[in-house]
Structures are given as structure tokens and as C-alpha cells.
């Protein structure tokens, strides 16, 4: 009997040890592999999305209050969810490196267009979000702590702000995937 009991205890210990090891492996996997897998997966999605996202920006219109206004439109036939718009200005001398120039200051607001012929008294401002890190579709970090505005795909929106004569408006289109923000398209326009 004693012999049998010894066997049961040792097996039990083995099982417990195995479970602990399993949990440890589970934990390690969850802590290390999952973020890598998630990021890679998100990056692949963003890359696929970026192949078919197009942003257009109208020529600037100057209102009576001297603000510059652009009509923007994201054409996205493969994905009709929300994107995030980051709009900022850079000096025109920085245009050659526009692809990698990060936002410095937030000067522009983004509104939804009322889609009427007569207009509304108040334009609807889109909700803003703070983005900790923006990656490009190759997974490189482009900018940190930027403010963006949510806009639906395939719906026109208006960007309003003060653009100095020697500056250029830059617009990033951000796609959110599995906790990460990727810039899937960008454009710029002289004021």
C-alpha cells in the first residue's frame, strides 16, 4: 500500500509540475510571442489596406474668416470602417522629405461635410483621439503622441485651419488594427 501511495504522489507531483510548466509556457508565449504575432498580423493588414486606399484633397478655399479649408475624401473600396486623419503643416522647404516628416503642432480641425445644398449652422466636428505611436506600413515608427480625427471611409470631410503662405498642409490617413496605428496613405497640398 505504501508503495502504491508513493507512486500516486510522485505522479501527482509530476502532473502539478507539468501544469506549472504549461502555465509558464503559456505566460511566456502570451507575453512575448503574442505581441510580435499581433503586430505582424496588423502590419500585414495595414499593408494590404494601403494598396487600395486613396486620399484626395481639394485646392484650398479661403473663408471670410481667413481660414483655409480643404475638402478631403478617402476612397477605400476594400474597407469601409473608420480611419483617423492627422492634418498638420510643414514648411514648403520640407516637402522633399514629406514622407517622414512628423507632425509638430496641431493646427487643423476636421469636420464632417453636411451633404446638403444649403449647409448647416454648425459643422459636426469629428471625434479626436490621441495616438501614442504611428507606424508606417513597414512597421517603422513615424511619430509619437499625435492627435487624429476619426472619419469614415468613402465620406467627404473638411479640414480647416490656418495655413501660412510658405507652409504646406500634410494629411495622414491612419488605419487602426489590433491595437496599432498605421499610416496607410498620405498627401499634401500647398495653401
Amino acid at each position, binding site marked *: 500500500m505504501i508503495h502504491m501511495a508513493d*507512486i500516486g504522489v510522485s505522479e501527482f507531483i509530476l502532473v502539478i509540475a507539468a501544469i506549472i510548466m504549461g502555465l509558464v509556457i503559456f505566460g511566456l508565449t502570451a507575453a512575448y*510571442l*503574442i505581441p510580435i504575432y499581433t503586430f505582424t498580423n496588423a502590419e500585414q493588414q495595414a499593408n494590404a489596406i494601403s*494598396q*487600395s486606399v*486613396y486620399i484626395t484633397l481639394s485646392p484650398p478655399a479661403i*473663408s471670410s474668416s481667413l481660414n483655409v479649408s480643404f475638402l478631403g475624401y478617402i476612397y477605400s473600396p476594400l474597407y469601409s*470602417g473608420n480611419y483617423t486623419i492627422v492634418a498638420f503643416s510643414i514648411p514648403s522647404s520640407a516637402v522633399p522629405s514629406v514622407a517622414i516628416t512628423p507632425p509638430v503642432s496641431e493646427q487643423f480641425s476636421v469636420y464632417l461635410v453636411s451633404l446638403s445644398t444649403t449647409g448647416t449652422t454648425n459643422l459636426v466636428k469629428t471625434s479626436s483621439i490621441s495616438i501614442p505611436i504611428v507606424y508606417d506600413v513597414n512597421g517603422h515608427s513615424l511619430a509619437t503622441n499625435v492627435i487624429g480625427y476619426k472619419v469614415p471611409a468613402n465620406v467627404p470631410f473638411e479640414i480647416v485651419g490656418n495655413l501660412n503662405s510658405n507652409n504646406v498642409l500634410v494629411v495622414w490617413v491612419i488605419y487602426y488594427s489590433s491595437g496599432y496605428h498605421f499610416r496607410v496613405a498620405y498627401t499634401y497640398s500647398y495653401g
Partner: protein
Amino acid sequence: MEVKKGQAIIIIFMIILLMIVSLLLPLILLQSVTKSFQIESGSSSSVVLAEKELQIEEVNNGDPLIKVYQNSQGIDYIKFEYIHGITPLDIEYIFYYDYDKAEWLLAYPGSYIVSGNTTLYLYTPPYYNGIIEIITSLGNAFYLPVQSSIGLTTCANIYNITQVQTITPILILPNGTSITLQEGTLIITPEPNSLPKIATGNVNIPAGSTIILTNGNEVSVPKGAILELGNSILIQKCIESGYFPISSFLTGYQSDNDNIGTIPLEERNPQLQTQTLVQWFIASGNIYPIKIISNSPSTKTSTPQANVAYYSDYAPTGGYMLWSGDAGLIIGGGFCVNNNNKPSQSPSPLNPSSSQYYLAFTVQLYNGTWVTIVDPNPLPQIGNENGQPSSALTLAVGTYDAQTGTIALYINGTLVSEVKLKPNLMLNASATSFMDVGSVYNGSGNNILLKSLPGFSGDIFDAGNNEYSFNGALGPSFIYNISLTSAQIKALYQGQIPSPNNIVVLWSQNTAEEVYLNTKTGSTEPAYYTTMPPPNPSSVLSSEAVEVYNLADLSNLNGFWGWAGAIPTAFAPFSDIIIWGGPSPVLFNPTLIQGKNINITFESQGLLIPKEPGNYIFSVNFTDNVPIAENNQAPNGYANEWVVIYINGQKVFEGKYIDNRLNVLYSNVYYFQQRNMPEFSYDLTKAVNLTVIFTFNLDVKNENNSPPHNQGVPAIYFNLMWMPPGSQWFQYIPITNLQPFIL
């Protein structure tokens, strides 16, 4: 033992299994909770891109050709016209920008599929002339200016081969001979409108047409010739907003000692804040440099820069082409900025060998400060006018927006310099300065620097100071009371008259009339009308004058020729024949048609709108009766000219002027026809369709039946004037009484 061994294996297996599950479980869980983005279209991204690019290419090739127009009531409409074949265009949105609401709004409520030649009226505010944006279902955006305009559509029987692409156009003659045609080849048909305005593919060329090859050789087309254009385009030469007179000469030719200016008895200048100055010009010979005595110690340069505002306490020197009273377009045979702010500074010497010109736009602020911007790229001398080297025919436009404080300069429709000063920055808008073309100062002396510009009155015998005077030829001058947008300025260069209701002054430079000026009241009456001999010129009551009418408003801001040694009428002095009859010219090389029996026909169509209902008498003018200024050469004769005029499809007049003889072939008033008077009459109660067919050729012989004796080509001239009910004399038809057809 065997049992134990088996148990151990199972346990080890389970442990391994557990570890594998532990390893995979997170990944499986992750996979199950990770959202895959929705694939919502059957198209792959490469197909989407190809479709988008194809749509852009088709629209760029005119399938459909998209243009936005404004009719005379200020209503915008968009026209879709297919040139080659119909490919439907699926429009998702059409937008315009409401400047007051600061909002992009729909110009058309809903989507629309264009599947044929279509016109859509837009929901834009009256006289909206900002940008229209079309967004298609493929996410392409097309930006279109509103082509608001006035005047007539005037098209010649001249067709130009353009946009030669992969297939070179070939002319196939009935005998099987084929001739390859290059881009720029001209086809002149014997009759007007024998070919479509825009053509592609195969086109039958009428017998008797003349094809002028790019090397200058001519081909006379026999019956049965076919032009195979392939995907190239044949376009008719048209002036889209033509007005009368149509002429090959300008009365605004200025030397550096004369001007056209307003006079003291009338309003001297439009006193504008926000404004746009528009001037066609050919600069020639020596013009004083643009010299700025900067009030900024750090500025000293002889190299002008774009997008830089030069500040000074003194007006810049140079050739003032157009001066509105507080803003001016200047051209100079050089450029320099001195920084000592001293009026005694000796100006740069006038360089007689100057081979290029600089263009500038200047405004005087409310506090007297001058702000000047300059095109950094000089205009070269490429031709010869009146025996002097000259620039090409060029369009200069300067804009100032007092609300935004933006000053901008454009050449030939392209922005060359722009500076935002500061908002709500007012100009001096003094009422005392004379509005001018050609010169702004007639004081004597050298090294004259002025803190303000007095302008230079018209109708006086005095020369302009060469430090403030232009030398060359001037085409139409426009002054707007708004700052035109870049799209509108491009439209202007292409022959439109954007935002016509904002034109304050239009001196077309070929509308000049000899008048008697009452020097007490400023009123004038045409010299031909006055049967009494003109009063003594020394009398204070009246003087002989030449009035340049403001075609935007005949009762205000008319100009008068100065009487110094200038050449106010220059009969075809140009290397090219330039036909004016609207904001932009049609140009020919005279060697192509001079002395040849090739007829050029202009057909003008549009609405003639009465000032008030009643009976109107019209005068058809084949020649210009303005006297020649003192040192001008006489015109080298007039072209052979024929005119037929229709109102609402009914012929009202036909006449010709051949070998300097007028012959009225038909007038709807027998009295006029019988007496060979080039007049007719019509009861105008509302707008009528007006069609004028004007034909000329330059196969003019002098009395010895030999070619013209000097190098100038015969002058081409046609004018239609009217005598409204109650008027005593014929008047120019204001531009706002000539309108494009309303669809």
C-alpha cells in the same frame, strides 16, 4: 513494472501535450479573436487602381469633356460632352465652397450617372465662381473653375491639330497621296463651321480648304480628301467671349512719352481696396528699370526674389502699364533694390542694351508705404515692334485682397509671386490720382522719386517722365473690384471673362472715338455727329479729344488719349497679326495669309440684350475713323472685308468693303441700302440672338495693282455700334449687353 512503464509514458505524453497546448493555446485564442478586415469588393487593388487611372485618362481625353459655365443670370451649370465615345461616368458628389458659411456644400443633391451629352444646373449661389469639385464613385476628384463669362462666342474657320499622340495624323488625297501632318498644322476651310469645333478620328476636309504645314508650306485640298486624325484632336480657333470691335490693332500703343488717362472733370480712379489689374502687353525698346528705395536697411539686391515683399517709402520707378490709383503693374528694363531710403540716391543708369524686362506689381498702403512684388524670371526680347526689340505678347495680372492682405502677381495665367502681408490691410485709395495706362507722371527731370503718384491726366499735350513710363504696345486693360482666384486668372488667359459683374473698368484699347469734350462739364459727343465746326481748340469750352470708352460702364471712368509724341494708334505693327475682340487674342503669322487669296471668317454668336425696349439703329463699321496721332504712320490700307448680320435667324444687313470702297448689299431699312449707308434697324423688346459673320482677306493690292508698299499688313477692323431709343448718336455696345447663349 510493465504497468508502471506504461503509466510513465502516458504521463510524459500528457505533459508534452499539455506544454504544446500551453504554447499553442494563446495563439489559437488570439487567432479566434483577431478581426480580419472586411473584403467588401470583388476587385483586387490592382484592378481598382487600373479602373481609377483609366477614368482619369478618359476624362482628360474629353470622354466626357467637363466644363462649368455661368449664364447671364449668374446660374452655374455643368456640361458633359463626349468627344470620342460614351463611357458612363458615375458621379458620387459635386461640391462647391460657400465662402460665407466656410463650408463645402453639395452643388448637386445626390449622385448622378453621366451616360451621354448632358447639362446639369447646379445649386450654387448666384454668380458663384469658385471651384467646383466632382468626386466619382471610383474616388477620383476633378476640380473645375466656373467659366462665367460675357460677350459672344467668336470662332474662325481656322482649325488647329493638337495633342498628337501615338498615331500621327495623315491627310489622304483622292489620288492616293498621303501627307503626314504635325502638331500645329492649320486648316483653313472656305466656309465657316464646315468642320466640328472639336474632331477626332476621320474627317472629310472640304474642297478648297488650305492646309498650312508647320514648315510654312501650303497644301490646297481637292475634293475627296480625308484627314485621318487617329486619336489626335482638331480644334477650331475661337475667342470664347468676344466683343466688338474685332480688330488687328490697338489704340493703346504707348511710347515712353504718352498715356491714356482720366480727366479732372470726372471721377479719376475707382478708389479700390481689393482689386485685380489685368493687362496684355508687348514691352519694347528701353524702359526704365524697376528701382525700389527700400526702407529696410537689410535689403539690397539686384536679384529679385519670388514671394518677397519689397517695402519702400517711394513709389518704384519703371514702366507703369496700368495704374488704378493705388496699385500698378510695372515693367522695367532691369531691377534693383537700394537700402539707404534716401531720395537723393542716384538711380541705376538706364541700360540701353537691356535685353530683358522685369515685371512687378505694386500697391500703396493706407500709411503711404509701397509694397512691391516681382517676378524673378525676366521676360526676354524675342521680337521686334516698331523698329525696337520687344518681348512676346504677355498677360500680366496683379491681385490684392485687402481682407487677407494677400498680394499676388501672375504671368500668362501662372502665379509667379505671392505674399500674405497681414489681414485687413487697407490701401490709400486716394481720389486724386488719375487712373492711367502707359505713364503715371509727366513731371520733368531726372532722378525723380515720388512718395505718391499723381497719375497723368488724359487729353493734354504733355510727355510722360521716362522714369515712370512704359514703352511698347498695350492690349485690353481690365480692373476688377475683387481679387480673382488663380483658376479665374487661368480662365482669363484662355479667353474667358470671369466674374463679369465685378469688372469696374475695361479699356479694350481698340475702342477709341474722336469726340468733342466739353471742358466745363466733361461731357463728350462724337466728332462725326457734330455738324457745327469744332470750336477753337484754345477755347476753354470745348476741345477735340479721343475717348477710350470704359466698356464695363460707358458713363464712368472713360479714358482720353494724351497728345504728346506717342503712337496711340498702331496699325498692325506686330510680327504676328493679333486679332482682338475679347480678353485674349487670336494670333496668325501674317506671312501665311498676306497677299494670298485665303479668306478668314469669324462667326460671332450670342445674345444682344437691349438697354431698354424700343427701336435701335445699328451702325456697321468697316474702318476705324480715329485720327492718326501726330507721328504715326497711316494704316497700310484695310483688309478686304465682308459682313453678314442676322438677328433671330433673319438677315438684317450685308455689306462689303473691297479696295477701300464700301458697298451695302442689303439693309432691312431700304433707305439705308439705297443710300449705301452701313446701317440697319431693329425693334428690341427683349434679348435676341445675334449672329455676325465677318470675313477678311489680306490679298489687298494698291492702286498700281502691286502688293502693299511697306512692311505693315493691312488693318483688319469690324465694329457694330448701336443708337438706343432717345440717343443722339451711335455708342459702343457695353460688354454686359452681349451675352453667351443661355442653354
